């Protein structure tokens, strides 16, 4: 089913629904928000369960440091929960609002410490385990691809990194990226393009080709 709602600036925000009887993420969120506003503590934990992983991943991808990502995710949730009354569903989806808060906090952190933030321990030995049934070569290629991508991300400009993370890490559309980054949709599009080109240049020596090569053995 194809549904349309209105986002920022009364632009229709189009969303696909596979099953019309199932509520969308936004509808579920609004239910939890109503519960929170009526004083139910369970609403907060439900909202946290819905968005915690996404917000943490967003912060980690932008900061590339676990401790900072945890702190910023916590700050973002605390701010959102304390200001739930100020959230207006007619302006933006809750996810967009929450991501905007998280990104603003990440930007504040960039400004505070200009030095590149890199979790060296994470880069040196990647804690992500390979999926079961994967050959050692493929597992190595996957972990190598992740490490290479993290390094490449750390070299990107913050604004380009934000755009690419929102696009590929969280599957946001250009319009949603524009809402989160508070810029025109065209700017968001060009940031995604520039980031993709930059990453393409950095990832070319390794990446998919190497993975294909290894898997062909």
């Amino acid at each position, binding site marked *: 089913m194809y549904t349309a709602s209105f986002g920022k600036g009364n632009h229709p925000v189009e969303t696909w629904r596979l099953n019309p009887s199932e509520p969308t993420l936004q509808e579920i969120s609004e239910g939890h928000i109503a519960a929170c506003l009526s004083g139910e503590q369970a609403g907060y934990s439900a909202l946290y369960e819905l968005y915690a992983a996404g917000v943490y991943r967003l912060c980690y991808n932008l900061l590339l440091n676990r401790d900072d990502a945890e702190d910023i995710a*916590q700050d973002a949730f605390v701010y959102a929960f304390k200001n739930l009354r100020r959230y207006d569903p007619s302006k933006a989806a809750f996810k967009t609002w929450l991501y905007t808060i998280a990104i603003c906090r990440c930007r504040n952190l960039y400004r505070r410490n200009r030095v590149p933030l890199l979790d060296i321990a994470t880069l040196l030995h990647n804690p992500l385990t390979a999926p079961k049934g994967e050959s050692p070569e493929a597992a190595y290629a996957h972990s190598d691809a992740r490490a290479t991508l993290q390094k490449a991300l750390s070299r990107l400009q913050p604004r380009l990194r934000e755009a690419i993370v929102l696009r*590929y890490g969280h599957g946001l559309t250009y319009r949603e990226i524009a809402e989160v980054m508070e810029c025109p949709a065209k700017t968001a599009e060009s940031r*995604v393009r520039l980031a993709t080109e930059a990453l393409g240049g950095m990832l070319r020596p390794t990446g998919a080709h190497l993975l294909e090569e290894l898997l062909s053995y």
Partner: protein
Amino acid sequence: MKTYTCRRCRGDIPAYIHRELPIRRRRRVHLHLNGCAACYAYYRQMRDVDDELRATMPVIGVPDALQLARVWRGIQAEMRPARPAYGHWRMRYSLALAMMVLAIVLPWRFAAQQARALPVPPTPQTQTEVTEGIVRHVAMATPEAGPSLASYAPSLRSDRLATPAIVRNDAPTTIATDTP
């Protein structure tokens, strides 16, 4: 109609791959790619990067349950309404105790100060006693002057002068014992 250059086409290729172009522009890019080998090579390259990012990016920074639990504990701690601290109650009790101590001590101190500030004036009777004491001392020191001093102190009669029992306690004991 504007010509659709390679430069413009390359600008649209990421949006074309992401399926974010309107139908007209999408068709234009499609037609251009069919006829331009350089742009088609660029498109293939961008599609490879897109595939790789699509596969790799979502698995970077996936949190484990412990991390999420830690963040949730932090949120709960910050969201908890500020509890009246122990120090607050301690402050109240301390104040009450201090007031009680003041209530007990202040009147006593005040009374003591008042007593020190207003000494009782000497009464005429006391003055007489003091005069008598002095005269008696003089009389005992010089016994021949005793009768002449009798007018000053009625107690200095000859029968009482001889007995040191009338000597007051405040008189120097050495004088009293030396008296014959």
